[in-house]
């Protein structure tokens, strides 16, 4: 069990170093087991350096920086076991426009092997979607999928016409 935990931990750690660097291009992130030589008893410490200057504890980060760091970590755990889909429910809420862009381009990086389903209120995120499902309750209390947009490479698949930006 100890061996398995250490193996998985190293995998998550390596994923986190890569994913964090994708979210924070000038920064670097790491995970360490501290407090006990027995990995099963130790605590996990998250090291986050959004810019080159200094290593910050999670406490010193701003709301948006923390959220992006945590998304990077959750994604690193997700990558350990392959799943065809990854659902993200409004995780972009605390992010500013530039971080939403980075967030989306990181997801794009993985779309070869992962289908992403993103629930969002963010206009920028919506713009980057390949497929868009709109949910409404036109009839009170009853959900309905109303607007569906399919585009691929500037082409509207649903209506079979090119999309003007």
């Amino acid at each position: 069990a100890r061996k398995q935990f250490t193996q998985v931990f190293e995998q998550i750690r390596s994923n986190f170093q890569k994913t964090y660097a994708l979210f924070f291009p000038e920064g670097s992130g790491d995970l360490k087991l501290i407090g006990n030589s027995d990995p099963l008893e130790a605590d996990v410490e998250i090291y986050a350096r959004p810019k080159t200057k200094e290593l910050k504890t999670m406490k010193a980060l701003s709301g948006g920086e923390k959220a992006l760091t945590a998304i990077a970590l959750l994604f690193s755990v997700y990558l350990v076991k392959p799943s065809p889909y990854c659902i993200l429910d409004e995780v972009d809420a605390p992010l500013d426009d530039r971080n939403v862009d980075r967030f989306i381009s990181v997801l794009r990086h993985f779309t070869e092997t992962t289908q992403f389903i993103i629930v969002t209120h963010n206009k920028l995120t919506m713009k980057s979607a390949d497929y868009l499902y709109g949910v409404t309750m036109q009839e009170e209390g009853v959900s309905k999928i109303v607007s569906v947009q399919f585009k691929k490479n500037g082409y509207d698949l649903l209506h079979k016409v090119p999309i003007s930006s």
Partner: protein
Amino acid sequence: MYISELDIFGFKSFANRTRLKFSQGLTCVVGPNGCGKTNVVDALRWVMGEQKGSVLRSDRMTDLIFGGSKYKKPLNYAEVSLNIHNNRQVLSLAYENVVISRRLYRDGTSEYFLNQTPVRLKDIHDLFLDTGMSSNAYSVIELKMVEDILNENRESRKYLFEEAA
């Protein structure tokens, strides 16, 4: 492996049959507060075998069945089906296409199907056991989980890693 279609009927606010198709790429789900976006996420979790009321936001399993609205009476059962393409043989089945269905009746009885063959919930769990799709895997990332890590909660952070191993 990839998911191609999610079919929802009678589950939570989806009183009418609703079908969502998925392809490679980014799919965004948008709409006003309370319209049913997170319910779509719950439907996907539920058909994959999720049992926890805290995750599905319901005190009793039967709360998942459409409970009625201003103009519609409550329904007698909820059913969700998921279409999965097994193109890389990740699932240890001879099938190229797998459809898992889950149905729950008001009286509490449940039915599960694998390509229209009745199975037990355990069979659905076992099918996905070694993939990242089992219900305790991290294929759903939501803001609340992000906060758990942010809140410097050492136990929940450690738990995240233990679950992955």
